[in-house]
């Protein structure tokens, strides 16, 4: 009897969890669409920028590169070879030019 009761209890719990999961899935889709709408709004687009000062304040003294690229642009970072202090980045676009900006406070 104990096991049967436990079984029923678990089944009810799993049903609740399933509902919760479905709710989260729907909310995620809704929020993703909301973010897309907000970002694509023409007035918001006009104000969606940061200044060079904003970035420099986040990274004290570092050399900074800003990369703007079309959707689908591929950024590839090969795993460095053992013993070599050499790191690479390969940027490849199929649909438009990539813009890279060097931001250096000095």
């Amino acid at each position, binding site marked *: 009897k104990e096991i049967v009761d436990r079984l029923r209890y678990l089944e009810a719990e799993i049903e609740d969890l399933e509902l919760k999961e479905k709710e989260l899935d729907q909310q995620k889709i809704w929020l993703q669409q909301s973010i897309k709408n907000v970002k694509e709004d023409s007035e918001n687009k006009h104000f969606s920028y940061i200044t060079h000062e904003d970035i420099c304040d986040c990274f004290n003294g*570092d050399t900074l590169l800003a990369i*703007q690229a079309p959707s689908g642009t591929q950024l590839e970072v090969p795993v460095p070879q053992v013993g070599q202090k050499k790191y690479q980045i390969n940027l490849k676009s199929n649909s438009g030019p*990539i813009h890279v900006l060097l931001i250096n406070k000095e």
Partner: protein
Amino acid sequence: AQECQNLEMEKQQRIERIREKRIQLQELLLQQIAFKNLVQRNRHSEQHTRGPPAVNSTIQLPFLILNTSKRTVIDCSISSDKFEYLFNFDNMFEIHNDTEILKRMGMSFGLEAGKCSSKDLRTAKSLVPKALEKYLTGI
């Protein structure tokens, strides 16, 4: 008893999936808050200065930021049509997307670090749909 065990396992898997999905939802909320806060800031700033900043002093979203030590030597090759770039670095680097940068700028009110004043929390809640406010309190 076997079925009980199976259901226990399924319950744990669902709990873990729900936990991950809640984190993803919270991340999306922070993204929305940060973006809307940035737009508000820039709008107020332009009203105050009566005009937009110089075009060459701003970076439009979306973007990635790469940071490396100022001692790093960077070698860059660019194709003539700018469709391909190759960078070589002699030192480590990090790459961050625009959402991450906005968080570092404080545009998400420190919510991601759990350090948010009650006043900022109220402001953050005003930037998200009412039905999702509870997730902000969760963060």
